């Protein structure tokens, strides 16, 4: 089955057509090799980094922004978001600190992307 994508690797936005030809993934419509790599990735295993924020207890901020420390499979994104909604972060937190391990079985961890300090300050 042929699939159509818009290449997002640069602002030109080439329209890619990607299909499987006897086990080999073919890309047409790309202007450069980056487009080919993107097409193959989107066709075979689209990945996304998830960013969100989660509530903090006793922090000088109500919320702490978080992200997955690696891209996760696109179809796992809803599960990842659901898991993030259940997190309760306790202040203080540092940027990069892990707040949830192996989220939704993806192997990626959820890490804090902002610093939140204790409320008393």
């Amino acid at each position: 089955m042929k699939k159509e994508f818009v290449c997002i690797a640069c602002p030109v936005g080439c329209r890619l057509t990607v299909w499987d030809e006897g086990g080999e993934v073919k890309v047409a419509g790309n202007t450069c090799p980056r487009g080919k790599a993107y097409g193959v990735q989107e066709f075979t295993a689209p990945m996304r980094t998830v960013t969100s924020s989660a509530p903090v207890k006793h922090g000088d901020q109500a919320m702490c922004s978080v992200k997955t420390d690696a891209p996760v499979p696109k179809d796992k994104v809803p599960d990842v978001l659901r898991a993030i909604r259940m997190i309760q972060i306790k202040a203080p937190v540092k940027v990069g600190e892990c707040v949830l391990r192996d989220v939704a079985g993806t192997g990626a961890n959820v890490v804090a992307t902002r610093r939140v300090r204790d409320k008393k300050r």
Partner: protein
Amino acid sequence: MDRKVDVAVIGGGPAGLAAALKAHEAGARQVLVMERDSYPGGILQQCIHNGFGLHYFGEELTGPEYAQRFVDQVEHTDGIEVMLDTMVLSVSPDRVVTAVGKAGLITVQAGAVVLAMGCRERTRGALGIAGTRPAGVYTAGCAQRLVNMEGMMPGRRVVVLGSGDIGLIMARRMVWEGAKVEMVCELMPYSSGLNRNIVQCLEDNGIPLYFNTTVVEIHGQERVEGVTVAEVDPATRAPKMETARFVPCDTLLLSVGLIPENELTKGTGADMDPVTSGAVVDAARQTTAEGIFACGNVLHVHDLVDNVSREAAIAGENAAKYALGKLNKAETVRVMAQGGVRYVVPQRLVKGEGKAELYFRVGAAFKPARLTISCAERVLVSKKKLVMTPGEMEKAEIDLSQVDGDVTVRVEEG
């Protein structure tokens, strides 16, 4: 006068922090950053998505991470003081800064001032949509702050007007927090947002995007109950009322542009550029008000914070030089936008040695585009690019030793 500093920086966003760091590095001993928020970092604090820093740090960061890198550096620099919860009220032409903060009213005499107040969003009032005035109409940035920083959802069923990056990012964010986003309407026949955001924010989440479409009326008494959307004539942008239809929703998010926050700048007497809505500056980012510099979104709206940081470093370095008496007054030539070019920053150049980077934006898409930068009959830069779009800031370097008069920057099809 309560105190004296070498360099006063107004605004503690990415522009202000980078300017302060560079000013200190360039020899300013006392640098004071004044920020009205309770935390430094500016608008990046609420931009929790990633895609920042690829150019500046060579890695992909979220907004808060990008900001924190500068906050950390500032906190480790003794000569820089950050005054939070401090709202600057005025900057006089002779660089007296008046602000109100925790300790009440203060005045500071600065050797040089860097303006880094960022921008604000255009609101519905600036647009004049017809209908009632119910609750549930937000700017996308305001909703972004509510959701990402306060943990509050502005609504459950959403229409987004405007397909710039902030609108696209917020459409996804609302879906990810459990809302239904009915559509994104775009007045123009194209989006100024990145392809990446159209794909990953809208297509991934099944959100339709309608071009040549706008919101003509808002309905509801207490709360938004729906909006009327209509297609517009691509030539005149006037709504075609025969295409009007009602879309039920409880929330309308407006992502219809940013305006540099320049009330303070005007008080300094600096010349303003009517196209950028920011000050007119030379390559040092000095305004026409001596010793007063500007950088970041207060100067012109940037799409990449990486460019903000670079511009801020230029402003900070030169502000320090000015404060130390090392920046001499010099005659300038003008830089003029021509053809498809909407504006160029800096708008002035000092003749002399070295290189200068010109940043500019086109007013419409060019595919392919030919750029020509010239000084009188002399061509300084001539190059082709596959595509130039209004959403993307372009950059070109020129050799100042070649400049002896006004410079023109021109983009044409070809």
